[in-house]
């Protein structure tokens, strides 16, 4: 998994840092804000799914352990355990309830695998940073607000809605005066300029649509 290589990649610069450090403050040397600095997307630690999975496993194994020990010390097995054993031994595989359960289990399993392999943090957009030891993200909401404000400054636009997706930005604007095509050209230019100013590490492409709203 690509994830495994990260800790090593992160550790390697310790020796050189001590040497380069002294020049940082004095010369104000600026490594170019190249793609190396910010191209990597931040990966979520997946704490909430991990905590939920751990909780479910702990509760299930702990409950079963408790009842096994209770039976070993000479008491009767709990009702749920007897029922569970009976159901497991009685229901054939083509029982609809069992099939629905199996489908749900398979879907949850697939979902966990997807969670494990995907970066997550889709609402955080990586930014270009002034040095390689610094990483920065911008909230998706903030980027949408910035672009919406830029759209609202274009003459003729009465309302605008901007949404960021993984590789695409959808901008929708209502035009109240001026020719829609002119407004669209101005809007595209204004949005592109605003997008460039955000300095995103991987700017999505713009998809601008306008619709006339004459009143």
């Amino acid at each position: 998994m690509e994830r495994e290589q990260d800790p090593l990649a992160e550790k390697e610069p310790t020796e050189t840092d001590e040497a380069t450090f002294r020049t940082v403050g004095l010369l104000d040397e600026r490594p170019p804000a190249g793609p190396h600095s910010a191209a990597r997307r931040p990966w979520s630690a997946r704490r909430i799914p991990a905590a939920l999975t751990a909780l479910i496993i702990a509760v299930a194994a702990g409950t079963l352990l408790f009842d096994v020990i209770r039976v070993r010390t000479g008491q009767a097995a709990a009702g749920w355990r007897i029922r569970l054993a009976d159901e497991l031994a009685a229901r054939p595989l083509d029982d609809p309830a069992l099939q629905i359960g199996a489908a749900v289990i398979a879907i949850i399993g697939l979902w966990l695998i997807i969670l494990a392999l995907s970066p997550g943090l889709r609402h955080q957009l990586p930014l270009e940073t002034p040095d390689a030891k610094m990483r920065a993200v911008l909230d998706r909401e903030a980027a949408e607000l910035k672009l919406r404000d830029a759209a609202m400054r274009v003459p003729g636009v009465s309302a605008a809605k901007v949404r960021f997706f993984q590789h695409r930005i959808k901008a929708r604007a209502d035009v109240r005066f001026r020719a829609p095509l002119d407004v669209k050209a101005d809007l595209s230019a204004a949005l592109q300029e605003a997008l460039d100013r955000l300095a995103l590490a991987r700017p999505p492409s713009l998809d601008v649509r306008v619709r006339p709203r004459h009143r």
Partner: protein
Amino acid sequence: MRRKSAVNRVLLALAGIVLLGTGLMILAGGFDLYRRWSLTPPDGWPLTAPHDVLLADADRTRWADEGWWWPAVIAVLAIVTLLAVWWLLAQMRRTHPGGLSVGGAPAVDGVELREGALGDALAADARHLPGVHQARARMDGSSSHPEAHIAITLTPDAEPGPVLQALRDGPLVRARQSTDRTLPARAHLRLTPHKPHRAE
């Protein structure tokens, strides 16, 4: 942080594979796919025919009379429970670098900068930058590899690029000078929501 992410992802993937595999095996047996697609499952493969059950009484009690069975069951369940509790608690812990040495290669003996102090200083420093409305900072990582986390709320007219440049040239360089290391930093920029307004 990164190690925790790697551990979480490996364990989540394992749990996912187990669940997906179990689900698919039950479905394959239930819809009789082995016979329909004339596949031959390997010897001893469970759950192959629609009338099979998940766990027959004979299978469940096969080793129940052996002396080692119940101790083994109890040991395995106890280990699984403990590992799951450890995994759960690991999600709630944060790593802290603790104290950081100050003052350069010949470290000033006995002088230590507490991580909270450095975080507060970074945040207070960042708050004065143009375009920054609010800033919070905390330290993460180990004492040998500390990392600064800075959360910044921008003013509505600020641009991220210049703010990041100012953040690096000011507060971050000062923090790096005072700890004498190239402190890695992560910045999270937000913007307070505001209503659209028409420029006339």
